[in-house]
């Protein structure tokens, strides 16, 4: 009732431009089954729990709840606070702030925001966590895991203009992000690392006309992950040769560049969408290129959809290793990290049922084909795990908005 009251108050208010506050929410209740019991399928690199090893079924991959307050203070000033509850780096469900920003509309074309804002790397970045508005149970991981973070702390400027029936939005975003991630340490327990992205600059452009939309983005940031750097401190003890290798692969203020192109068309009863992305850096992470294409057809409230996605690495430089004696083990360790990167393709078949207002049920089957020698996006790989196989996922989700 409170929700209803706020909403009614808000809608009455908007006609006469008085300050208003609205409350909205979204969420997903999902379960996923993996047939690979020697490794775990997780939703992102930032969480430890998923389906596969230890538990065939997991409700922790896709489930989340988001709550949002939007305050329209004056016609120019507005503010958004969004809190999301989902699995975090230690497997807990502590609410985290997804957005918290203030927006100033200079005029009808130019707006500025400051605070915690969206990082618009991909076409669906802004709503990648809102299951109700995306066709799938989760965005195609081959593309969306390339840059797994969805927000940064900083500023952005958006310039929107129209010509004929086209609407074009050009956005520049600058800021930084810190994310804690879990990893399995050598004792078999969990450790956590901190990824620090600094000097993040994103230029993105969206061109829309009717049901058609074209997206392009260029993204660069400097990343530091201190937990990986002790390995390179060892390399640096081997003189200039070790230093050169360390500089090539370490994660100390390393520049990453990501380019994304996307297009979508919604004809009303059917839709087609695709994205291509490329990430490059001089680091432990191999350069990769990913893309997906997805399409669906709406039979009334039933929407079957089909997606093909892949991620491949390129420019994989084989570590030349040190020429000095007794370094074979060190070189082998570095080489194993370079080789053990996600390379896979997947075919997904799903169906969405809009059984009532503001709610949808989805069922999705994913067939993932891991490239030879790669674990794909699986984590917590056990000694019995064989890289390069196939993995089948069955997922069910209830998505809602209010």
């Amino acid at each position: 009732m409170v929700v209803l009251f706020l909403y009614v108050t808000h809608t009455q208010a908007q006609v006469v431009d008085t300050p208003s506050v609205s409350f909205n929410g979204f969420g997903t209740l999902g379960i996923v089954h993996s047939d690979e019991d020697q490794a775990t399928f997780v939703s992102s690199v930032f969480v430890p729990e998923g389906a596969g090893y230890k538990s065939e079924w997991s409700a922790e991959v896709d489930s989340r709840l988001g709550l949002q307050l939007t305050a329209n203070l004056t016609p120019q000033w507005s503010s958004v606070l969004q809190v999301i509850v989902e699995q975090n780096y230690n497997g807990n469900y502590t609410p985290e702030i997804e957005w918290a920003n203030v927006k100033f509309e200079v005029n009808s074309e130019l707006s500025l925001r400051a605070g915690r804002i969206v990082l618009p790397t991909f076409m669906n970045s802004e709503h990648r966590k809102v299951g109700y508005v995306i066709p799938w149970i989760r965005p195609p991981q081959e593309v969306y895991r390339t840059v797994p973070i969805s927000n940064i702390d900083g500023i952005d400027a958006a310039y929107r203009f129209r010509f004929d029936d086209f609407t074009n939005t050009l956005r520049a975003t600058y800021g930084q992000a810190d994310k804690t991630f879990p990893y399995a340490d050598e004792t078999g327990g969990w450790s956590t690392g901190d990824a620090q992205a600094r000097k993040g600059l994103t230029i993105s452009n969206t061109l829309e006309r009717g049901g058609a939309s074209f997206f392009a983005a260029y993204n660069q940031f400097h990343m530091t992950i201190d937990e990986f750097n002790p390995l390179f401190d060892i390399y640096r003890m081997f003189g200039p040769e070790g230093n050169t290798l360390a500089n090539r692969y370490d994660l100390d203020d390393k520049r990453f560049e990501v380019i994304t192109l996307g297009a979508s068309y919604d004809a009303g009863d059917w839709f087609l969408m695709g994205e291509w992305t490329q990430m490059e850096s001089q680091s432990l992470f191999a350069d990769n290129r990913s893309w997906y294409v997805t399409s669906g057809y709406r039979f009334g409230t039933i929407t079957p959809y089909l997606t093909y996605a892949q991620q491949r690495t390129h420019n994989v430089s084989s570590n030349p290793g040190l020429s000095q004696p007794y370094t074979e083990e060190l070189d082998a360790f570095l080489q194993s990290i370079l080789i053990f990167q996600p390379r896979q393709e997947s075919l997904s078949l799903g169906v969405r049922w809009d059984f009532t207002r503001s709610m949808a049920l989805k069922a999705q089957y994913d067939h993932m084909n891991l490239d030879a020698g790669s674990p794909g996006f699986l984590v917590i790989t056990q000694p019995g795990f064989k890289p390069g196989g196939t993995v089948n996922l069955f997922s069910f989700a209830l998505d809602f908005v209010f």
Partner: protein
Amino acid sequence: MSTRLMVNMWGLLFSLLAGSAGAEVVVVVSAQNPTKTLSHAELGDIYLGRLSRFPDGTAVVPVDQRETSPAYTEFYRYHLEKTPTQIKAHWSKLIFTGRGQPPARVANDTAMANAIAVSSRAIGYLDSTIIDERLRVVAIE
């Protein structure tokens, strides 16, 4: 699924028959508003939050009816070729990034007529039988 399809097709047929029998949803502005025509694309973009001005440059405030009203479904089906579910998904995208809020809503055709009549910036839609001298029907081309 085939049963559902049949139901949908009958529903469509019924609404087409009902539509041609008399009731028709028309787009209206205040009689003080000089706007006489809008293109389908302009009307669609106004209601999807992409266009914030009338062709003469003045600000536009779209007004919606309740999602449960027949006029709502008819308006979006006929003028935007979208279902209520698609409209819900569209606004959810904008709401959850703070990029916009859906149009203000009124309870019924009479409330719509009253809301439009008092604001030269407002645009709305209602059953053609409710039109009075305070309102002007906008031709959608």
